[in-house]
């Protein structure tokens, strides 16, 4: 059996939870909003790793977000914001 990993919190995370501050604003943590199954926005991303109409992988500060679905397309893209439209089946942290 695999040993249970203990969640490790950084100092920044501890501070933000202590002072009740929004993590996505203070620490630039990624924020994902999914509306129904047809649109998804990611704030605070760093780059696109893979782009096809079945899967989009996006790099954020901490981990990689993988969006799986059909007919996916990036409708809006700015330096800190991505809007993905299409039929979303799965959103996964890698």
């Amino acid at each position, binding site marked *: 059996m695999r040993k249970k990993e203990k969640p490790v919190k950084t100092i920044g995370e501890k501070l933000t939870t202590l002072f009740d501050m929004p993590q996505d604003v203070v620490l630039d943590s990624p924020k994902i909003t999914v509306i129904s199954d047809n649109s998804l926005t990611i704030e605070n991303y760093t*780059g*696109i*790793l*893979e*782009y*096809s*109409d079945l899967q989009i992988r996006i790099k954020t500060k901490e981990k990689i977000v993988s969006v799986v679905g059909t007919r996916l*397309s*990036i*409708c*809006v*893209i*700015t*330096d800190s914001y991505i809007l993905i439209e299409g039929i979303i089946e799965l959103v996964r942290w890698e």
Partner: protein
Amino acid sequence: MFLIKLFNILKGYVIITVTGLFTERFINLCTRRSISIWNTKKINKNQLSACVDVDDFKRLRPVAKKSYCKVHITRKAGLPFFLYRYKKRKVLLASAFISFVLLLVLTRFVWVINITGNEIISTDQMMEGLSKAGVKTGVFAKSIDKSYVRNILMTDIPELSWVGINVKGTTVEIDVKERTKLPPAFPKDSPCSIVAKNSGVIVRSDITEGDELIKPGDVVSKGQILVSGVLEGELSGIRYVHSDGVIIARTWHQKTVQLPMYKEIRTPTGREKSKNKLKIHNFDINFYIKDSISYENYDKITEEKKFSLGDNFVLPVSIQYNKYVEQTVTTVEMSKEEVLSKTIAQMDEELKGIEVVSKKHVFENGKLTVTYECLENIIEKVGF
């Protein structure tokens, strides 16, 4: 989102195809250099289509070079490109501009005047008064001073009691309330007598002022003095008063009609002509050559169709359809019932507002006599 789309269309954008192995890198580099691209779509593994601003397109070259991609323009979209296509067609551009300006200018003027609510006052009379006050077709809509027009109309046409003026686009709507016509009132403070307006038998009288000369049951003839305004007292001497009161009398109104009466019956023969014309304000363009009509008797049916933008902006252009339908006129003798009902209708119109007790009619010696027995107030004030 909609505003952004509109802005993009106004500014103009190009739809590009990016071909290369590293299209993801291409997008990353674009965002890094704040080149706004949108509506990206992966066509196949090596191809990507996207929209880019016109101004940013030049900045794509180093990006494409760095990500080993090739950029092609598939389509140019937006207003600047659309206008560029028509740049050489100067006449088209000029006429579009002129028509736009004409439309703007023409909708500033008054083209239709609607008058509602007038019964006694004829529409022509109203139009005359309006044109005197500066409201007519072809006048600048903003120049209409409502209170001035109202003053002019109220002083010109005494039958008006209220005028409402609404300017809606190119139509001026004039709503009119008329005074109910009263008999010219005798001045309240000047002395007068009362005479009979009609002959009849006095039923009852209620005199508030003056010397009553009659009593119920008296037969009076037209013009006879009923109440005298001259009072003679033993102490006060002669006084003149303003006589007033109500005198109800039984009166008879008669109408005699010579028989037989004839009427005209018009039947269409089936032949008809139509003469249409295009009207531009006061200028007519006829769609026919001969102006005269060969028919002896005809009915003219006119229908006008006005061009308008929406409900309020009526343009000064209209098509007038004139239809001339030939008629045969035959004279037919009216039946007795028809003559009677016609005469009664006339009498009813004449004796409007008077209480009618009974109606009688007699056919005699080729004549019809209709008699109405009425109860009416026969007061008429007459000064000395």
